[in-house]
């Protein structure tokens, strides 16, 4: 195996753990970046998962890194807030997408500091109503990384996803038929299948279970975003129009992200602070 390193956005959940296991085939050193913010400060840190990966892949080195994205997220949310509210209104509550963007900003900063050239992300096609999961967002991320001479990869993006075990997600998201529709039992290997075969998961699908909640770091609370998306925007304008609005909103936020990465006076936002 070549002596190379990659950074990987790591929550400890099934998808990111599967991406880490796949990364172990190509990289000798994997920096597992977990992001903590005010909203998720009581959520578990996936240290146990890191140990399991290290035990399974003894020839690789997994380095756990915990970063606080609180300052960056606050900046992305509230910089020029009044102007943004007048221009985009309720789109300013697309906070899960802003949270995602803050992770990637910190990842770019980390990679530039540690001379890492490749970033892996275990993003799949689940919950496609989230901005950070949408194709336009992923395309913008690829461009943002490329501007800093970094390669952003999604090794499990096109893998099939299992039937959602979370009752509320089935009720709110799947039932409404957010594209792409799940065709029932997936064909091919899911991320859970892959981990189960490696002995890193007790079952083929633990998503939404208590074990899943105990081993992974939470994402941003998204009840309010679900209300924004399904109660307000989809009923008023339709989902496609909402997605177009999100594209326009995040275009400005990606521009802000570029400014953050370039301007040294904002360097305090990127101080690698352990939560």
């Amino acid at each position, binding site marked *: 195996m070549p002596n190379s390193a990659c950074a990987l956005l790591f929550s400890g959940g099934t998808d990111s753990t599967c991406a880490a296991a796949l990364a172990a085939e190509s990289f000798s050193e994997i920096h597992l970046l977990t992001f903590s913010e005010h909203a998720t400060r009581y959520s578990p840190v996936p240290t146990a998962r890191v140990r399991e990966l290290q035990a399974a892949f003894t020839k690789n080195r997994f380095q756990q890194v915990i970063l606080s994205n609180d300052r960056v997220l606050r900046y992305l949310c*509230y910089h020029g807030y009044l102007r943004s509210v007048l221009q985009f209104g309720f789109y*300013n509550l697309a906070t899960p997408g802003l949270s995602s963007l803050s992770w990637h900003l910190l990842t770019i900063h980390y990679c530039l500091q540690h001379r890492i050239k490749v970033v892996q992300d275990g993003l799949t096609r689940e919950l496609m109503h989230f901005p950070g999961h949408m194709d336009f967002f992923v395309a913008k991320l690829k461009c943002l990384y490329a501007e800093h001479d970094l390669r952003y990869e999604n090794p499990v993006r096109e893998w099939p996803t299992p039937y959602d075990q979370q009752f509320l997600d089935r009720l709110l998201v799947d039932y409404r038929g957010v594209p792409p529709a799940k065709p029932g039992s997936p064909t091919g290997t899911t991320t859970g299948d892959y981990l189960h075969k490696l002995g890193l998961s007790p079952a083929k699908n633990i998503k939404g279970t208590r074990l899943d909640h105990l081993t992974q770091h939470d994402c941003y609370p998204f009840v309010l975003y679900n209300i924004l998306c399904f109660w307000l925007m989809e009923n008023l304008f339709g989902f496609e129009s909402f997605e177009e609005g999100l594209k326009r909103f995040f275009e400005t936020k990606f521009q802000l992200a570029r400014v953050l990465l370039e301007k040294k006076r904002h360097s305090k936002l990127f101080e690698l602070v352990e939560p």
Partner: protein
Amino acid sequence: MQERLPNSPPLPLRILQIIGGFFFCGIALVLPYRMRVFYFRGLAWLFHLPVEAFGKLARFVLMRTGKNN
């Protein structure tokens, strides 16, 4: 008018959802960062409460009747 997602609810429920959406989102829009996070967590707790309560009740009934979960 934009095409709706399949399984959109009936019109009366959509109207209620729109009113609810304006209410909940309107509050969030004017809150500063930490208060907004607190508000989000509170809403999450509130909306998950019936599901969590049902789960606890189901576990209790299973335990009392000696059935395996």
